[in-house]
């Protein structure tokens, strides 16, 4: 086998950079991961959602070559994590949900060590260190012992360590956990920049609003099984989710109740004074038709608004009956 420096790592031009194929992982009789399939392409931020113990970390650890699947396989840039772990590792940056607790080491030395461990040498290593320090805004902390860092600094250092060798694939397990709002925004920006650089990013989080803002695609996992995959809108549509419509009618909303009575696509209609709220099954087009019908019927619509369900709504709907 010919060895090469990280800078020389080439990825396949097409095809997903991350792929899970019928991934199973059992711990005794517990099915931690059961037949999970999805793929992540270049420049894509893929959100992995699920409650504690759903199987997110297990599948991420398998992808990071830290655990072995019971059945199935996972691929990073076309290489099997089971059979070609060494090739996968060169292409992967992993940020676990825990922090490295090395004693007697400062930030600069810590990053320098990982740069060396990934085979970066000489000016190439110095360049990578400067770039990572600047990217993660750790420039001023180069001489600070890592056991004296705050949570947010540690998360940034962790991210810096994961990206020191400029991997095409990044796996971030709960990167925003325990961060203050400012640090979360910074982290979100960093992830956005990494995706813009063409990296495939798999990120898990409990904070669903965070994921909704940064992810192109999400996968919802519960009890080891993948319940839904796609954009939030796609999942919403696939689940025939309802959109909440709010209406304000000048002179009272009672005509709205009369007009909508008996329609199958309208649910939970509430009329109070000039306002009407209801849930509507259908697309944005059918909503536009509904508004037109109101206006045609002479109802004086002063305000009409609808909103898609949030990621939380989708998550609760998809995991209905499963999440305790």
């Amino acid at each position: 086998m010919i060895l090469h420096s990280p800078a020389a790592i080439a990825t396949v031009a097409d095809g997903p950079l991350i792929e899970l194929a019928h991934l199973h992982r059992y711990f005794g009789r517990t099915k931690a991961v059961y037949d999970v399939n999805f793929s992540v392409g270049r420049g894509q931020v893929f959100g992995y959602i699920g409650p504690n113990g759903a199987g997110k970390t297990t599948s991420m650890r398998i992808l990071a070559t830290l655990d072995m699947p019971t059945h199935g396989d996972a691929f990073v840039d076309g290489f099997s994590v089971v059979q070609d772990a060494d090739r996968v590792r060169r292409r992967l940056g992993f940020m676990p949900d825990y922090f490295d607790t090395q004693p007697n080491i400062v930030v600069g030395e810590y990053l320098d060590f990982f740069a060396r461990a990934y085979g970066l040498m000489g000016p190439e290593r110095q360049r990578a260190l400067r770039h990572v320090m600047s990217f993660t805004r750790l420039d001023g902390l180069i001489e600070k012992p890592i056991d004296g860092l705050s949570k947010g600094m540690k998360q940034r250092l962790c991210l810096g360590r994961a990206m020191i060798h400029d991997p095409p694939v990044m796996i971030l397990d709960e990167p925003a956990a325990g961060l203050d709002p400012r640090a979360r925004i910074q982290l979100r920006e960093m992830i956005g920049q990494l995706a813009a650089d063409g990296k495939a990013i798999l990120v898990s989080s409990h904070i669903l609003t965070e994921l909704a803002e940064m992810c192109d695609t999400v996968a919802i996992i519960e009890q080891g099984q993948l319940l839904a995959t796609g954009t939030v809108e796609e999942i919403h549509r696939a689940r025939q989710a309802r959109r909440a419509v709010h209406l304000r009618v000048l002179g009272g909303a009672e005509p709205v109740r009369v007009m909508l009575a008996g329609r199958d696509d309208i649910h939970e209609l509430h009329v109070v004074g000039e306002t009407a709220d209801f849930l509507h099954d259908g697309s944005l087009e059918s909503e536009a038709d509904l508004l037109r019908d109101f206006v045609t019927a002479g109802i004086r619509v002063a305000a009409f608004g609808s909103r898609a369900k949030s990621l939380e709504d989708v998550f609760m709907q998809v995991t209905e009956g499963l999440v305790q």
Partner: protein
Amino acid sequence: MTTIDPPQDAELLAELVTLPVDTGWDRFEAWLVKASDRLNPILVKEARQALRSRQFVITFLLMLAAGWLWSIVGLASIGPSVYYAAEGPRMLFVYHLILSFPLLVVAPYSAFHSLSSERQDRTYELLSITALGARQILSGKMCAILLQMMVYLSAIFPCLAFTYLLRGLDIFTIVLVVSYTCLLSLALSATGLLLGAIAPLRQRHIGVSVVLAIALFAALFFENLVIFQLVYYGGLAVVTSEFWIIQWGVASLFANYFAIVFLAARSQLLTVSENRSTALRWALVAAQLTFVSWMAFAVIASGEPEVLLGMIYFSTVFWYVCGMFLTGEAGNLSPRVKRDLPQSALGRMFVTWFTPGPGTGYMFALSNMLAVTLLAFLPYRWIGAQLRNTVSANAGAGLGPNVAFGAMQTWLSPSEILGPAAVAIAYLAIYLGIGALVIRWLRRYVEVKLALPVVVNVLLMMFGSLTPWVIQMTSPAIRNSGWTMLQAPNAVWTLAEICFDKPPLDMAALVLLLWGVAIVVWLLNLRPLLDELRQVRVAPPQRVQAEEAALAAEHAVPEGPKSPWDEGAEL
């Protein structure tokens, strides 16, 4: 291809490349920085951490203080007799005592703690997913320990050098004392790393820590006993060949031990899809060859054939212990390992036994034991022929009975070598074979890790040895009969009986019985072995092939003239 290439990097690179290099010191520093790129990253990191750690600083300062204190107290107690009394050994021994604690206790325990705590704190996980392999991680940790040893040694080195000026010591003794201590420290540190690799759980970690600490203090005690003898009564005769032979023996023992322990630790750090066994099996064979060579030399040099019996018994224990682990390996090879399976008929015939698997492991242990027995006959035949030649030469010269003839009378008969060897091989085949079958059955229900094969084999051996013993001891009729045929399953008593009380028993019947059982057990193990042998080489996945081809093309040497006579060469 993805690279970190922000626009300002060109400026940064230019800045780095054009760093001012004016003085000789600057050039030296630049060279050091460049050289450090070639160092193992673990060494760099651990050295940085260790030199800042409280434990290292305290140990170093204590050593330094103890060295100075003993220099003052020792010299004061010697007084004016320092000019003529042979007080060098006493001073050296105490200096060695001061040195041996950090080297034989602190450094090996640091090695253990370094790896085991990383595994417990999961910092090892982050290390394992870098481009560093298991071998690099271990060698980095070994180098860091070596560096610590050097620093400790440097603290006491002036004192050691001072002892050379005293009477009663020569340079060889001082060098030998330091070399032995350093070698033992390295061997113990490698053992510490192995234990660190196999003790990731907290409960096991505490247990192993305690056992290791006790073992290290025991090693410290016994090493000091040996060094005491060496320093005071050694009377080193460096001009004699025996001295150098012993040094070679110690060196080869250390090299083999170190290789086996290091590779065993490495195999524990590899992922299950990688080949954990082949390198270790080669190391075991190398150790066996070294051992057999030394034993053959010992027989030829001493003329005592009992050494051969010792060799056979030691080999039996060695291959039984190795066989426990080998037969506990998984039977199904990963596609990764299958990529490197031997393909040719010759390769499949000889190299297959080095591929991982319980069946090949069982055969590997047995065939090695068989090889030891066959090799035992080489020195036996050689020395026997030498003795016969001497006897006939003396008889031809009319010298009558002589010493060689006397030696001939005490020379073991072939059956006295062959019998014990046959019994030892049979026991190995039976116990390892049954153990392999039990482990194979257990594998259906539980995950077989490192400890299970050991537990199974130890229980089997205890059951096989204690059951007939208990039966005999509780039967009044045969209680005082000594060894009886009932004890045939009792490997320990039977082998001891053959060794110390020969000829005590019906050897032919015993061999027949044991070999009959051994063949049955071997046949029962044949099916799983055949399953393993049916596995054939598989091609790497297309993605791997594509990358290999791309890299090969990248590293290919461009076609050009290879000599002045080739076309295109400039003359």
